């Protein structure tokens, strides 16, 4: 093991003992002593004000890669519900694990998450690792990254997939850098090639695709865009192994604390835009905040979410959380309806991978029509309500 305590510097203050998620540190005669439970997660190193603990991680070069087995996903739980993206990751993990003849596994982290075990076992997870603690109720980079770093070091998965959500994109690079692992962001395709994870992602504002591998380090890690992969389907599965991992969390030691939460979801369905199957989006052409009601009506009929271009957000018509585009959220719904959005390159980057794009705009020259499968040149205030009515009628007939 390559973690050491400098006995000259250590005063036995106990901060590290509290910070250790795995209960591996005891203070013995005013000196921190690190026991066998240590997973080298590094939580104590960051906590120690006296820099008395040093951690040397060997780069995984030239180690036996075959000891790294199984395809893991880190499930995301929000507001007491499993986010759909977690089932999408599992769907992909099952496919990859089949090809490798390894097991698809789920890591559930949070408070009161054991109850979700069945959702994942029904959908084909072979092993479910559970790190449950009431102080893991809310996502904090510091606590989640230490716990997951430790678990990865101990259980040695071959592949770990994270959702490319706000918290996934915060968490995964933190873990990757701590463990000196490669990480590929925002993958839209994953497959196995010569035993390695082949990761496909867009770059240059969606103008090129790149295939990336991670040959020398394990686990191979990637964040995966929501709404791109197929969800794992439910079918009974009785052979799921549950592994409970006891963890301690010390919220007192957090260096970043949440003071206030301001929820501002405007969509009645409350679906985050990145997860919505159908998005009705508005831009400057919507004209005013009140007119967004027209788009909400259409979204409600389609059980979709309301999105917006940057222009509409900057004008204060709709909250930032709904913004689609390079500086907002990248989405890939089944249907994207762009209303009064001209289609700047920054917006197109964020929605171009939607399956079907429908554009409604006054200006026949608007660039949005270049990417649209269907377009109507006209005033959205006239067209959208008619479309809402027509779809309502049609959906009630079916």
């Amino acid at each position, binding site marked *: 093991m390559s973690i050491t305590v400098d006995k000259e510097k250590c005063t036995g203050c106990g901060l590290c003992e509290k910070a250790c998620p795995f209960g591996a540190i005891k203070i013995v005669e005013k000196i921190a002593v690190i026991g066998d439970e240590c997973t080298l997660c590094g939580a104590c190193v960051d906590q120690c004000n006296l820099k008395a603990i040093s951690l040397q991680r060997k780069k995984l070069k030239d180690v036996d890669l075959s000891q790294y087995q199984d395809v893991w996903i880190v499930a995301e739980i929000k507001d007491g519900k499993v986010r759909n993206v977690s089932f999408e990751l599992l769907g992909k993990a099952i496919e990859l694990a089949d090809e490798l003849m390894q097991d698809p596994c789920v890591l559930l982290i949070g408070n009161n998450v054991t109850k979700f075990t069945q959702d994942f076992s029904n959908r084909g997870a072979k092993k479910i690792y559970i790190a449950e603690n009431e102080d893991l109720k809310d996502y904090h980079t510091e606590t989640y990254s230490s716990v997951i770093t430790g678990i990865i070091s101990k259980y040695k998965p071959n592949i770990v997939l994270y959702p490319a959500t706000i918290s996934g994109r915060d968490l995964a690079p933190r873990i990757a850098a701590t463990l000196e692992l490669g990480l590929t962001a925002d993958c839209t395709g994953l497959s196995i090639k010569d035993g390695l994870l082949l990761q496909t992602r867009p770059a240059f504002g969606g103008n090129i695709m790149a295939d990336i591998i991670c040959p020398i380090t394990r686990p191979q890690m990637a964040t995966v865009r929501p709404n791109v992969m197929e969800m794992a389907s439910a079918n009974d599965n009785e052979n799921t192994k549950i592994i409970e991992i006891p963890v301690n969390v010390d919220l007192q030691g957090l*260096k970043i604390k949440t003071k206030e939460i301001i929820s501002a979801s405007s969509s009645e369905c409350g679906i985050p835009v990145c997860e919505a199957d159908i998005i009705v989006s508005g831009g400057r052409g919507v004209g005013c905040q009140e007119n967004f009601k027209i788009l909400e009506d259409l979204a409600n009929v389609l059980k979709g979410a309301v999105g917006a271009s940057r222009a509409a957000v900057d004008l204060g018509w709709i909250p930032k959380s709904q913004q689609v585009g390079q500086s907002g959220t990248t989405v890939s719904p089944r249907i994207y309806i762009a209303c009064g959005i001209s289609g700047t390159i920054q917006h197109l980057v964020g929605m171009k991978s939607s399956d079907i794009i429908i554009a409604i705009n006054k200006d026949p020259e608007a660039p949005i029509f270049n990417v649209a499968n269907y377009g109507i040149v006209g005033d959205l205030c006239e067209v959208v309500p008619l479309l809402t009515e027509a779809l309502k009628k049609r959906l009630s007939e079916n």
Partner: protein
Amino acid sequence: MKFIVCVKQVPDTTEVKIDPETNTLIREGVPSILNPFDQFALEEAIKIRQEGDEIIVISMGPPQAKKALLKCLALGADKAILLSDKAFAGADTWATSYTLTQCIRKIGDFNIVFCGLQAIDGDTAQVGPEIAAQLGIPQITYVESIEKLEGKKLEAKVQTDDGYKIVEAKLPVLITGITSSSFEPTNPPMMSIMKANKKPFSTWTIDDLGGSSDNYGLNGSLTEVIKVYSPPARQQGVVIEDEKPDAAVLKLIELLSKDKVI
């Protein structure tokens, strides 16, 4: 206080085209610009600075990247360091963050490290958190704006999936995000550009940063790009023009059901 802002010179992706014959990027004639998101981060640092604070911009890149750093100086940064060495070439996010971390450690004694939301060429948003992890300092990602900076504490407004939250952090801290500035990157006035040439500018190589050469550039990279190609082109769509709204909607519904979209 000492603020360090990490910036990148990027090709202007709005100008990038694909050669349909060879399926490769046409790089000729594509201008290099200061990554707009990094400029927003710099603008935030300038906004919260007080008398006596120092803003240092750092960038890893080829010698030409000096131009992006000069723009930062013209916008109001005090000092610029370019990390330029053949050994740095071909770096992935891990090797890039290692290089920047080595530089930040050498500068030392900093209070806030700023990174842009992401670079517009790679779009990974990974380098910021990877630097924070290597420095062993906390990170706040998706920051909308810095609300307060008092003593050794910072308060920031942070974007969440369904709104915002206000968080309080002890310094030192690394923050990424900041998109609240207008997307059109502003150009500094001529006078500031002239002054920028007189501000301290240094170029550091691998010898200045130290550490094993195995950790830099292509050698230090943990991921490997094996193929680059253009995405499948979208099929040409149908645009309904010169129709009355009700007729247009009717036609659209017909098309949608024919194509089994609804």
